[in-house]
């Protein structure tokens, strides 16, 4: 009995511990993106495929994040320090607790038929970063199991 209680307690603690690194990492990435957005150059001249968060299925968040992550290094910035921020964002979003979609099983993700990065609409770099930040804000929200109809 005691072993079961200890095991359950450890599971709860582990779940909570996993939430904190995700929040910290997302906050760090968001701060870096804010700096990058302030230092963008040729905003209307560079265009990127960008998922729009308001039109994104929940089970496609992970693939959309990967789309943003892959393009972030191509943003045109004015400062060498901002290039370092770009590399930081590119690296941090590789972490498993960011990429893994907690709310969707692999079957649900496959059923969602998420778009590839190139299928998304082209937007300028400023809108690209705005959409990127919005997706990270959505990723920061506590996630629950959902109704399958929403897929």
């Amino acid at each position, binding site marked *: 009995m005691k072993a079961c209680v200890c095991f359950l307690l450890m599971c709860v603690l582990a779940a909570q511990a996993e939430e904190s690194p995700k929040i910290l990492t997302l*906050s760090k990435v968001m701060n870096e993106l804010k700096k990058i957005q302030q230092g963008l150059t040729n905003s209307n001249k560079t265009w990127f495929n960008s998922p729009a968060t*308001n039109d994104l299925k929940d089970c496609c968040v992970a693939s959309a994040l990967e789309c943003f992550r892959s393009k972030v290094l191509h943003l045109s910035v004015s400062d060498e320090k901002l290039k370092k921020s770009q590399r930081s964002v590119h690296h941090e979003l590789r972490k498993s607790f960011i990429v893994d979609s907690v709310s969707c099983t692999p079957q649900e993700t496959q059923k969602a038929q998420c778009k590839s990065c190139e299928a998304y609409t082209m937007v300028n770099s400023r809108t690209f970063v705005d959409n990127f930040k*919005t997706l990270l*804000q959505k990723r*920061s*929200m506590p996630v629950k199991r*959902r109704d399958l*109809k*929403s897929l």
Partner: protein
Amino acid sequence: MKLLFLTLFFGNFCTFSASSDPKINCLIINLDYVNCTWSEHQYNYSLKGGFSYFDIEDCPEYETANGVNVACMLPYKERTQRFNTLKTSLYRDDGSLVTEQEHMLKEYVKLNPPTNLSVVEKKDAELWLYWNVTKNDNCIESEVRYRTDQNNWKDTTPGVRTTYSLPFPSNKQYKFQVRARITSSCGQSKFWSEWSESVTWGTEKAFNDTVFSPESLGSMSVTSLVLYAVGATILLVILSCLLVHSERLRIILIPVVPNAGRNVSNYLAALFDNYDGNVEKWLSMPKDLENGFKPNFTERACPVREYKIFSQSSSDSESILSNPTDVSSDYQSMHRYSSASTIPGSAEPLQTQNPSQVDNPV
């Protein structure tokens, strides 16, 4: 030309119709439901709505005024729904579509105010404020404001914690309030919640413009005033009874001031009538004492002699004084002087003492 005129007319008509469509405004309330209102109430409209990738539903609950629907409460099933597009449609009673509109509600959230505010003073002279927020996670930030007595409110920096500490509070009354919103890391809401119910710590100022001001007196209830008056009366009665029956208490609280009265005035009259104001004669003082009050009085010096101690035996404990006759003669002269300088009645102890037994030389 006629075709152009007709095109322009109908084009303007369509534009006019579109601009006269009711404007639908939606706001997410406490992440519990979506409150949608519309600008026109001349017809009884019905609404259908839903977030993208969720079902479009008939409005389950309306708010009515004067018999027509004026607002709709749509369900809000998941906390991330506000990142999706909300599609709403308004219909007339006959089922005809009036307008369709889409809304981006990520920032249009208004939370309920925080609750259960409490203040605790800790041992190290710090005030700690605690409260609960509606959805307790890292996406809700709170802002505290406080004021002392009736001064202006002071705002603090918002944070995700549900505690606030104020070091070294002064001896005043503090009033605290808290409000909440979604943080920027989770898509900051445009609106703060309403301020919470306030919580108070400390005592209000007891002088100047508080207790004795007409406003403060007016604010005291009649019952409180009557109770205070009755209590004061009872206390006065008890004290009066104690003073009457307890002589000891009366003497302590009201010390008796000696009153000379008529006898003293008669007594003093004899000083002036019989002794012509001469206080010494009136008091029947001895002559020596009387001389002591004269300005040219000189006191005789009292000679002091030293006694040498020498031992006549081998033992150290014994000691014999020097010639006692010197002592007696000196003592007799001392006796004469001492008896002249002391008040009669106090020289008896010296007269009875044996001069040969002086043990402690100076």
